[in-house]
């Protein structure tokens, strides 16, 4: 009997999984661990040293102040 693929095992009622099939799942999940551990942790991006100041928006006479504007 050919061993079932990981994908097939994942879609199998787990009550029907044999001990060997559980080990296959386990080993398949372990495979990428070392590769991932060797990857550097992504750091948050640093702000650009040259800050850019957005141009002020034109405020129309009819615009209203939102509640957030008052929250200082």
């Amino acid at each position: 009997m050919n061993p079932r693929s990981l994908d097939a095992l994942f879609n199998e009622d787990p009550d029907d999984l044999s001990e060997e099939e559980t080990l296959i799942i386990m080993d398949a999940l372990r495979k990428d661990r070392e590769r991932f551990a060797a990857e550097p942790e992504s750091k948050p991006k640093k702000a650009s040293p040259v800050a850019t100041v957005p141009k002020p928006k034109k405020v129309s006479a009819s615009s209203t102040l939102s509640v957030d504007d008052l929250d200082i």
Partner: protein
Amino acid sequence: MTPDILIEATRLNTAFSTLIPGLQLAWDSTSMGTFKECPRKYYLSILHGWQPRAMSVHLIFGLHYHSVLEAYDHAKFRGLNHQQAMSVAVKTAMVLTWDKKLGRPWMSDDKYKNRLTLLRSIVWYLDQFENDPMQTVRLANGKPAVELSFRFNSTYQNSVGETYLLCGHLDRLAEMNSQFWILDRKTTKNQIDERYWRQFSPNNQMSQYDFAGKVVYNLPIQGIIIDAAQVLITGTRFKRGFATRDDDQRNEWYHDMGLQLDLAERYAKACYWPMNDKSCGNFGGCPFQDICGKSPKVRDQWLKGAYTKRLWDPLQVRGDI
């Protein structure tokens, strides 16, 4: 909010007073944490038990993660080796994430937290801590100190003489170099850096666990060890952090809790739990934000439409994930 509504809402909930309707007597860290965060959120989610119809993927993932690691801890304690206990854990995870009724696996639309990343996180975590110097404490009854339920008298009382209890569940009690620690496991999508660890001191849940460990097990508890898992799409990263408390900090938390209990009685007597409208956006947004944003006269209708009820009785169910 009337006393009749409160009596009906808590009729089957053993954690609530029968003398003062709406007053909780048995407090787990979820109840107390929610109460501190926003009394109205507490009123809706704990007292009435409302929750969004779709259970949060974070909650499901966290519950499974805890249950599977607990199965591993028990298997190891029974004398199985790492490989055998891991096999028990994997099988447990497969069963828990299988929907028997529908005949298919748990379907999550979250790319970080799903069946595959759950199983992978469990296997990787257990391999990383295979030779963990933290050893599970053996209780006096010979059982492992894993998934421990606790309940004890806080010594605080309400105005009619009923005693407040503190209760909850600890993941694991462990010993390393003759020092005792409470071990808690967390999963997150966020980077586990200094900012992540800062959230645990001060922290209501960790303080209550630490306090409980000290009182219930009468051991020189150093504090909490947090095993954090950063669950990403391509892998899971683990880090271990420590949240210590000294006796002065414990006394301060205990004193503050007494004041919170006074407040809980005051709200119950007034049949009113005010909103803390400064916390609506915290932790990714309160699930009741849409309800509280509507007029009080239509809120019940909206709750019935989009939410479902469950009983939050900390004397019966597991509290924290």
